[in-house]
């Protein structure tokens, strides 16, 4: 915008009246600084406005000035228009801000490290537990292996009942002396919801079934080998599927496996 355009645009009039936006006022002020001709135009506008109210018949009461004068006396001691920069104070503040920033950073780092330690500790506990479990399982398995290998145990095969579950099979390791047996039921299908396997010892003549254990830990057992105690001289072992909790007498229609003890 050249001077001619600026003068005829109305921006100068609005500038004097204080009605320009800050952005537009800045433009005018920049031009004002560089071009004294514009200053003349501005002064003419100011004069026109001030002249509007220059009626001789009115004067502001003298008391107004007296009030102003009495309230300003000694109130202003500022002498310089550009306040000196107080470098020592500034650097003091800067140092304080840096210091605080440092502290905050360190606190944050500390928090992060503490969190990491906590996570690591938790992980360690979990791993330790796993090791313990594995060790327990190993001990159990080794023990079991020793038992099964020992001479005291006899191996009895329990083949699947052709009419109920021909694919099934189980094995019993039986100790005559201690009346203890281990039964391996890995070869049985997982029992349906609400059902459990129940192990019976049988005497054949007359046929007398006695419950020697309900395998209610089937689902959670890893190796599907269970220990059975107090087994009276059996002639056969059978496994039936029974409602949870087991039954008084075997449900023969659900006899999965049956095996004779050969002496």
């Amino acid at each position, binding site marked *: 915008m050249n001077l001619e355009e600026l003068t005829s645009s109305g*921006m100068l*009039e609005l500038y004097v009246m204080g009605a320009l936006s800050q952005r537009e006022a800045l433009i005018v002020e920049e031009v004002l600084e560089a071009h004294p001709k514009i200053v003349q135009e501005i002064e003419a506008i100011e004069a026109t*406005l001030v002249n*509007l109210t220059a009626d001789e018949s*009115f004067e502001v009461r003298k008391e107004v000035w007296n009030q102003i004068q009495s309230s300003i006396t000694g109130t202003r001691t500022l002498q310089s228009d550009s306040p000196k920069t107080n470098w020592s104070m500034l650097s003091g503040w800067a140092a304080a801000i840096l210091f605080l920033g440092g502290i905050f950073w360190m606190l944050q780092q500390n928090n992060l490290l503490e969190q990491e330690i906590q996570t690591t500790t938790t992980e360690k506990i979990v791993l330790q537990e796993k090791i313990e479990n594995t060790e327990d399982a190993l001990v159990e398995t080794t023990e079991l292996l020793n038992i099964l290998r020992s001479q005291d145990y006899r191996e009895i095969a329990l083949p699947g009942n052709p009419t109920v579950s021909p694919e099934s099979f189980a094995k019993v390791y039986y100790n005559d002396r201690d009346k203890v047996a281990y039964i391996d039921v890995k070869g049985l299908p997982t029992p349906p919801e609400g059902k459990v396997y129940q192990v019976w010892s049988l005497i054949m003549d007359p046929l007398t079934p006695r419950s020697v254990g309900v395998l209610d830990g089937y689902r959670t057992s890893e190796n599907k080998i269970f220990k059975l105690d107090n087994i009276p001289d059996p002639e056969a072992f059978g496994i039936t599927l029974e409602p949870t909790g087991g039954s008084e007498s075997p449900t023969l229609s659900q006899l999965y496996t049956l095996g004779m003890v050969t002496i």
Partner: protein
Amino acid sequence: MSQPDALILAMQKGNEAAFSKIYDLYSKNIYSVIYVILRDHDLTEEVLQDVFIKVWKNANSYSLEKGRFYTWLLNIARNTAIDKTRSKAYKNSSKNLSTDNFVTILAGHDQLSEKTDAIGIRKFVNQLKPLCIKLIDFLYFKGYTQAETSEAMETPLGTIKTRARNCMNELRKITLQEGTL
């Protein structure tokens, strides 16, 4: 009117005599501007005092290199007066009628003032078109922005500047004819 740069500089350095002369130069005009907003002599005197005390205390926030002293002063005056309109004292005086413009108010023909209260306004102002009186009333006396003026006058925003230019030119012509400048 040329700006009293030397007086302003002296005032900025704390010279009370220079400040007093600046008061003499502008106080009457600033009084009128405040009065058009408040329409009450007691309140206007109060605000005028506040304005010049602000000028004295904040003199160093004005810079000769940047902008005109009159515009700076005018903004302080209108802002202080408009602040006053929000005060209890002003609300109790219930002067917020809007149909009057600066010509009727200053001449004492407005709905509230007695003739004796008049501050006075140059007679030639009556030769101005009503549209120009309205425009100067909003932009200069009431401190409206261009957008507010455009809305109040129901004219397009883009024409405010050129209309202001035309009206001020007309006013300058009348003033010259009257030989008062």
